[in-house]
C-alpha cells in the first residue's frame, strides 16, 4: 500500500510517498532532506506535533504570554496538553525560555515561554 504525505517539518512541504507492507515501511520517497524521512516514519508509526498557545500572566504588561512545547508531542495528546496549558497562570516577570510546565503530561516536552512579559 502507498500512502501520500505532505511533510510539515519545514515550509518547503515535500510530497512524500510511503510504501507499506502491512505495518512495516518498505520505502520513503520524495523527501528533500533527512528530516522528511523522520517525519514520514513518525507520521506512520507515531505522529507528532509542536503545540503553541498562550498562558495567563498575573501582573504583566500583557494579559497573556505565548508558550510552546520544547519538542514535539504525540498528535493525539494535543488537546490534553492544551487543557494543561489553560489550567495554569504565571506571575510576571516572565522571561523568554522560562519553563512554565516541566515535562507536560509525561511527554518529555516542557511548556516554555516564547516571549518576555
Amino acid at each position: 500500500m502507498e500512502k501520500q504525505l505532505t511533510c510539515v517539518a519545514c515550509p518547503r512541504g515535500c510530497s512524500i510517498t510511503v510504501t507499506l507492507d502491512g505495518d512495516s515501511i518498505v520505502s520513503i520517497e520524495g523527501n528533500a532532506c533527512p528530516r522528511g524521512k523522520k517525519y514520514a516514519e513518525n507520521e506512520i508509526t507515531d505522529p507528532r506535533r509542536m503545540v503553541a498557545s498562550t498562558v495567563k500572566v498575573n501582573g504583566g504588561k500583557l494579559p497573556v504570554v505565548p508558550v510552546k512545547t520544547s519538542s514535539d508531542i504525540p498528535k493525539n495528546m494535543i488537546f490534553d496538553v492544551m487543557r494543561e496549558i489553560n489550567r495554569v497562570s504565571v506571575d510576571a516577570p516572565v522571561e523568554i525560555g522560562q519553563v512554565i510546565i516541566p515535562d507536560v503530561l509525561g511527554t518529555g516536552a516542557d511548556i516554555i515561554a516564547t516571549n518576555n512579559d
Partner: protein
Amino acid sequence: MNERMTYDLVVVGGGPAGMAAALKARECGVENIALIERASELGGILEQCIHTGFGLTYFGQELSGPEYADRFIKLVDKTDIRVFTDTMVTDVSPEKVVTCVNKKDGLMKLQAKAVILAMGCRERPRGALNIVGTRPAGVMTAGTAQKYVNLDGYMPGKKVVILGSGDIGLIMARRMTLEGAEVKMVCELMPFSGGLTRNIVQCLNDFDIPLKLSTTVVKVYGDQRVTGVDIARVDEKLQPIPETIEHVECDTLMLSVGLIPENELTVGAGIPLDRVTRGAVVDELRQTEMPGVFACGNVLQVHDLVDFVTMESQIAGEGAARYIRGELSDPEYIRPETGFGVRYIVPQKINIKDKKDVKLYFRVGAIYNNPRVVLECDGQVLSSKKKIKVAPGEMEDVLIPASVFDSLTPESRITVRVEV
C-alpha cells in the same frame, strides 16, 4: 518641540525587515542609524505570530514569531542604533527628510543620507470584497483575531467560518480550534489555496476542518452579531452559482483574503510601484527608483517566510551602506522579463555593471505539477531546474550567476518562465 536631526541612515519600521536591514547596514560600517517603530516594542507582526515554524531556513531551528523577533531585538540592543518606538513616520520626502512624531519628542524631521522603507503589509479588509448583507459585529480579518487571542487574551468567537485560505487564515483555524471554538470551514474563492501546503496539513487536515475550494461567502446575516453566512460555489469566471447557495450558522466570519504592502509613504515620496507586487520597483540591491531610498520585506513584496524577509533586508542594508559610501554611481540596468506562468519578478531591474550573483524571486499564476523553471538570456537557456510543484502560494527563486554578467549588454533580455 520641532527639532531637526541628521542620520546617515533612517530605517522606517522595526519589524523583522527593518531590524535586519539596520543591523546589516551597521555591520557594513554605517555609523549613525535611526530605526523608527510605531508600536511600543520592536518585532512587528511577529509578536502575535506565536505558532512555530519561523527560522528553519535562517537559524535551522523551529522558533515561534516572538522568539525569532527576540533574536534580532537583542542584537539591536547591543548596537548604537538609535531606536525610536511609539513613533509614527508621517512623511518621507524626495530630499530624504523623514518626518515623524511621538508623544515625548513631538514632531521630528530627520535628515538622512539614505532611507530604508520596511513598513510591512496589512490585510485586505471586508470593504475590499463587497459582500452583501448586514454589518454586525463578528466580521474581522484573521490577523485582527490573532491579535485578540494571542496578545489581548480573549476569544473573539465560538463558531467560525473563515473566508480565504491565506496562511494567517489557516493558522487561525488551528488556533481557534485549540482554544475550543468550532471552525466550520475555510472557503477559498480560487480552485487552489493561497497558503503553504504544510499549513493545510497541520492546521486543517489535523483537525478535520474542511477546505472548500472554488467557494465564497455571498451574504452576511445578523443584527448585533453575526448569526450566519451564505456560501456558494463559483464558476470558472469566479462568479457565484445561485443554485449552490447554502446557509451556514456562525457567530464569526474571519477574512484571510490577501495582504497589501503598506506603501503610503512610498507613494507620498513619489516612488513608482510595481503594478503586480504593489511594492516599489527596485534593483538587485533593493534600491527604489529614487536613489538612496531602499525597500525590503513585506512592503516590497509579500513573503511566505520571515526567513526570506530577513535575507532580503540584509541585501537592502548592505545596499544602503554602499550608497552612503558613494559606490553606486552610474548603473546600467536590464529588466528581467516574466515568461509563461510567471506573474512578477523581484528585483525588477539589475545593474549589469555590478557583476555579482543575483537571485530573482518570483511567483507563478497557477499550480503546475512537475514543471521546469527556465532562465533564459537572449533565447539561450542559462538554467532549467526541475520542480515537483510550483504554486501561487509559494515564492520561487532562480539564480543568475555572476559569470553571466560579463557577456551582458543593456540590450540583453533575461526571461524567467515555467515549462510544463
